[in-house]
């Protein structure tokens, strides 16, 4: 520092340096954002975040598996008996009324991934059985026998027509 510096000069210089550092720092942080953002799912991956499914062609009792975000989703068209049975109880290990799990009682949409370790259960007779460790689910996707702790996940979905649903959007 030169002797000709007054205290005012020094304060002004320090202030300027502080302001410049803050402005520069903010810019440096902002410059990092596109890099970080580029690692997020790209728009084509996000598009696959929803899957449309045409329900026509399914008879009562039929089950179809469709891919959504890389996972299997079970779509079950339930018969009247199945609906009555499911609405009669709240399920087994993870009680939940059937009405909460199906938007329209005839159609059940659940993610086909066992809540225990992630295997895909098989449809066998009523409900599903997971052959990895023996968990069982009913025709509402509720867990009736462990070691799975929770019911099959109901993904966000809605009816975009009488016979079409879009999975991934509530």
């Amino acid at each position, binding site marked *: 520092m030169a002797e000709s510096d007054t205290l005012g000069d020094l304060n002004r210089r320090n202030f300027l340096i502080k302001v410049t550092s803050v402005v*520069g720092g903010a810019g440096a942080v902002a410059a990092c954002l*596109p*890099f970080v*953002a*580029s*690692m*997020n799912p*790209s*728009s*084509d*991956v996000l598009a696959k975040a929803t899957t449309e499914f045409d329900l026509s062609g399914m008879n009562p009792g039929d089950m179809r598996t469709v891919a959504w975000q890389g996972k299997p989703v079970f779509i079950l068209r339930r018969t009247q008996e199945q609906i009555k049975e499911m609405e009669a109880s709240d399920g087994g290990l993870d009680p939940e009324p059937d009405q909460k799990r199906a938007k329209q009682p005839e159609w059940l949409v659940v993610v086909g991934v066992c809540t225990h370790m992630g295997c895909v259960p098989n449809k066998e007779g009523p409900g599903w059985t997971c052959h990895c460790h023996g968990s069982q689910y009913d025709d509402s996707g509720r867990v009736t026998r462990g070691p799975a702790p929770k019911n099959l996940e109901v993904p966000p979905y809605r009816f975009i027509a009488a016979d079409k649903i879009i999975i991934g959007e509530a």
Partner: protein
Amino acid sequence: MKNRIIKWIDQRFPLTSFVKHELTGYPTPRNLSYWWNFGFLAGFVLMLQVATGIFLAMHYKADVALSFDSIQHIMRDVNYGWLLRFMHSTGASAFFLVIYIHMARTLYYGSYRAPRELMWWSGQGLLLLLMATAFMGYLLPWGQMSFWGATVITNLFRATPFIGEQVVIWLRGDYTVGDATLTRFFALHYLFPFLIIGAVVVHLVALHTVKSSNPSGIDLAAKDNIPFHPYFTIKDLYGLGIFLIVYCSFVFFLPNSLIEPANNIPANPMVTPNHIVPEWYFLPFYAILRSVPNMVGGVVAMGLSVMMFAFMPFLDRSCIPGGAQYRPVFRVQFYLFLLDMLVLGYIGYIPPTSQSILIGQVATLCYFGSFFLIPFISKAEERWLIKRGLPPDVEALIASEAREKSKLPQRRRREDIA
């Protein structure tokens, strides 16, 4: 608390002394002009290219069936993918611009002369690594220009005596530029920048041994050095600001101007574009290649044109210190050389006609002529300047240099700033 941690580290690692000696307290000539900003800028662009490159590599696919599509995926679907891509493509041009200015500064001010020869040669190595990296990177988009440019340049290795054909096939991994070539160029393009970083470290170690030159070309007394921080840290940052304005103007408003239209067409091995042209930074050397009617001769000329710079410390025989500052003939030579490079660049760009080929050949002769004539011109100029009389400090330095040479080879070390 912070001081305790630093003290703990200092007992185990020379952190504080390194930072003080080599960074903040590092003695730098006070009269450095803005032409000395370009080394820092080159380092910055290197970091920029590595960062954008790594994030691009998260989305790029190095397969002939997928690469062009993956670039479109990056441009259209990946969040800010277009920004990463344009930063990287503009960054390549920015890198060469900065490096060429950096080299021009070194030539003009004679910073390649003793004791800075190793700096110049490590720089030469860096230039070669950069050219190789850029060449391999250009294949990756798998556009028409990518493919045909790579085909033409890999073909040149046919000039290798006796084993030319095998060398070309070995280089490509196939009889033509194909999937094997693309995959290996991607692997090497990812690797080379880290070799460049290593070479930059060598370059900086050499710099810190001999310290920066300065516009006068005369080693300044210790009192005329100032600490790098804060004077040159702030000056470098200011220069960076100016650079970024120019760089971002291109990235955001003119990015397509630096991408050949033909490269927006997927590579087609059956159809050659009417006009094969490399990126601007290779144009002068491309012109020299085309100037020689013989294929082997052209390759040799092109290779030599890049390597000629390395001989400068030996070619320049003048005892007048520094570069163009006190040497008017050298200055004229320098400007003529720059003009020649621009002419060669233009010739390299336009489609060859008999006229342009002739101009190119004359320009090539001038190019090599400038180098070959330097020993004679520099000596003659020295004699003329000494007869005419030099500024007193220059005379003093020449005298002290002569004294030094008669002693044992023991370089004086400049005292450090406390």
